[in-house]
């Protein structure tokens, strides 16, 4: 697309990855073909089929759960905690050693810019393993009583927006606390999880401790409803989260859910506008807006609305949309045709309901799934683009006059995952922060993540935390 600056192409080489024509399930330390109908995983930037991937049937899931149970009972459960920690340290190091390979594969399979997979997804995934490795032999200090115990077999289902990172958020705490895992990656992004299976083998992780069963919704249902799964962890849509909560009702299974969001990003009139604009861009266009905690509702104090919107449009005009493998790309491809259709539907609803749409000039690539960064102004809180999670690069701008109005509008959602606030006044930041019903609040920043910082939602954004000491509680039975 036309831009202020011209750049020569700077593509990352894909030669570092060796994508096989087909991949199997990873059960009990071995790869096998599984008994479901294989699915094809596609590079969303080119629509090229990358590989055929096995689909786990109910029987395959059952084999995986049995392998996980055996590993829990015989190996991983009885193992010295310090040794469990050492395996996790090994995995963290292997992820770092093979970081470039993971980043390239993630970008090919997911469509996210290589700059993000290289600088965010993969380093954070390694950091999660490193952090949790250290917990393995210190759990008696986690505030869950003197001898917290693992739950057993964890069934984990993860989304396609941060495939490797979400794997790390799930697998690292589960293993550190002594549980074993059956993980189902997302249908459209299974490849880095399968490369992770190779890492488990390189680390000599005992067979059955981590099992990876690829597939679609049916496979996920089999994982969460398997009677010998003790703990279910899910990240994904609120709709699927509801059905999982229904499925575990009346059982003894423990459940944590990390679901959708519609975060408010609140800009006060005293905010440094240029910094705020960077934060707004990071909030909504990071990872093409495929982020559950994306700052998708921009609340601007009325007096600076025009200034903020003008600066924002100027900045968006310099964003580069295109080849995710190019190191200068800011926005990559939309992950799937299905997601693109969902974004288009909600944007059309914004048009129909009377919001004013703005998009930068420029062409999108011919092949692949793409959507331009989009800003809606004149948005009213009742419109779908103000209420529904778009999960795409679409920002809805609304205004407020007083801090109370900002808080009321920010909280006017069934979600409660995250929020942002931009102001130079510390007392105002702390006051507004304490009134926001959201699990993560970024003040004068946005979309920062760290394994030491618990992450998770209020309200219908889910329950349970991932990361930090608080995140361990999801995988342990304490004395309280």
């Amino acid at each position, binding site marked *: 697309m036309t831009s202020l600056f011209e750049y020569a192409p700077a593509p990352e080489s894909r030669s570092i990855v060796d994508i096989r024509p087909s991949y199997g399930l990873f059960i009990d330390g071995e790869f096998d073909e599984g008994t479901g109908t294989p699915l094809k995983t596609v590079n969303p930037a080119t629509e090229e089929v990358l590989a055929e991937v096995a689909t786990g049937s109910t029987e395959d899931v059952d084999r995986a759960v049995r392998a996980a149970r055996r590993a829990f009972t015989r190996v991983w459960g009885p193992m010295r905690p310090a040794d469990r920690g050492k395996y996790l340290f090994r995995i963290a190091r292997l992820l770092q050693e093979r970081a470039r390979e993971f980043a390239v594969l993630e970008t090919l399979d997911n469509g996210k810019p290589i700059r993000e997979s290289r600088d965010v997804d993969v380093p954070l995934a390694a950091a999660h393993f490193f952090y949790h490795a250290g917990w393995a032999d210190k759990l008696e200090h986690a*505030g869950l009583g003197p001898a917290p115990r693992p739950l057993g077999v964890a069934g984990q289902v993860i989304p396609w927006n941060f495939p490797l990172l979400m794997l790390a958020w799930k697998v690292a705490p589960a293993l550190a606390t002594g549980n074993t895992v059956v993980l189902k990656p997302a249908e459209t992004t299974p490849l880095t999880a399968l490369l992770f299976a190779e890492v488990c083998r390189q680390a000599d992780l005992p067979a059955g401790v981590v099992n990876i069963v690829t597939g679609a919704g049916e496979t996920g249902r089999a994982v969460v409803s398997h009677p010998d799964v003790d703990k279910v962890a899910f990240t994904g849509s*609120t709709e699927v989260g509801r059905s999982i*909560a*229904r499925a575990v009702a009346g059982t003894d299974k423990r459940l944590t859910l990390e679901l959708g969001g519609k975060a408010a990003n609140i800009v006060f009139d005293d905010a440094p506008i240029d910094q705020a604009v960077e934060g707004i861009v990071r909030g909504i266009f990071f990872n093409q807006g495929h982020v559950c905690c994306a700052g998708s509702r921009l609340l601007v104090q009325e007096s600076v609305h025009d200034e903020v919107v003008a600066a924002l449009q100027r900045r968006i005009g310099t964003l580069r949309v295109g080849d995710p493998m190019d190191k200068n790309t800011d926005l990559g491809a939309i992950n799937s045709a299905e997601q693109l259709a969902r974004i288009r539907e909600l944007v059309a609803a914004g048009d129909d309901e009377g919001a004013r749409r703005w998009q930068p000039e420029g062409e999108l690539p011919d092949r692949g799934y793409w959507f331009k960064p989009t800003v809606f102004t004149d948005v009213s809180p009742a419109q779908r683009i103000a209420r529904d999670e778009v999960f795409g690069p679409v920002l809805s701008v609304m205004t407020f006059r007083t801090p109370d109005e900002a808080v009321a509008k920010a909280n006017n959602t*069934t979600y409660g995952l995250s929020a942002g606030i931009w102001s130079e006044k510390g007392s105002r930041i702390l006051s507004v922060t304490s009134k926001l019903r959201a699990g993560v609040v970024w003040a004068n920043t946005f979309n*920062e993540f760290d394994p*030491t910082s618990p992450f998770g939602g209020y309200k219908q954004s889910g329950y349970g935390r991932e990361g930090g000491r*608080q995140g361990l509680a999801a995988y342990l039975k304490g004395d309280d």
Partner: protein
Amino acid sequence: MSDRLAVRKTCKLYLGGAFPRSESGRTYQVHDAKGHFLANAAWASRKDARDAVVAARSAFGTWSGATAYNRGQVLYRVAEVMEGRAAQFAEEVAAGEGLSTAKARAAVDAAIDRWVWYAGWTDKLAAVLGSTNPVAGSYFGFSMPEPTGVVAVLAPQRSSLLGLVSVLAPVLAGGNTAVVVSSKDRPLPAITLGEVLATSDVPGGVVNLLTGDAAEIGPWLAEHADVDAIDLAGAPTQLAMELERSAAGTIKRVLRAGPEEPDWAGDPGLSRLRPFLETKSVWHPIGL
């Protein structure tokens, strides 16, 4: 024995700080353990439950916004006021649960002490459950527990006072507001507790006590969009499963109950505080 004719109490709901009858006009008979008539209790309807949710939501800002020290003093005040009415509670517990006077009095003492225990928790939760987060970057990060919001509590059916206090006090200590459905057959201690709460500096609407049938009111609370969490302590197994399934529709936090009512005399630890607390993580850049 005096020949004075006693003045009997009309048993009402405790809702939004007031003592209304059920809007439905319904009452039901309460009997003691031997089957003798004790009183007519208000039989709360789904409309009463909805009104209670509105009251609890309205009170949430005040109660959750109070300082932890203040909340602790208010909960301690509940214990003080209960102490003065211990004999009345003991009589009601003895009659309803069929206990000896000594055992009933022990249950009342334990209930009072439970308020004291939770009163002391209010200003420790942030230190025990919160954290500063040493993130790998130039940010100050911290996490703190915050109340979940409006909690529906189905109080235990057997332990009419100690059980009730054991499930209600932790909800309040965390800063939540509550809609409580009392034990159906043994509601009198709950009614008296409402009178204690009303005179203990607990703001109106923070606790709403409904006497009636959890099986009737529970489903409305489980699916109510403005209820954030539900404690299933007083729901029998089949009902508990149905309510948990229904609560999934709005992603409520659900505290499950075991198949048997526990011995409420045991040390509860944090087991009833954690389920009704959220964790908020805050990031702020460090720089000049």
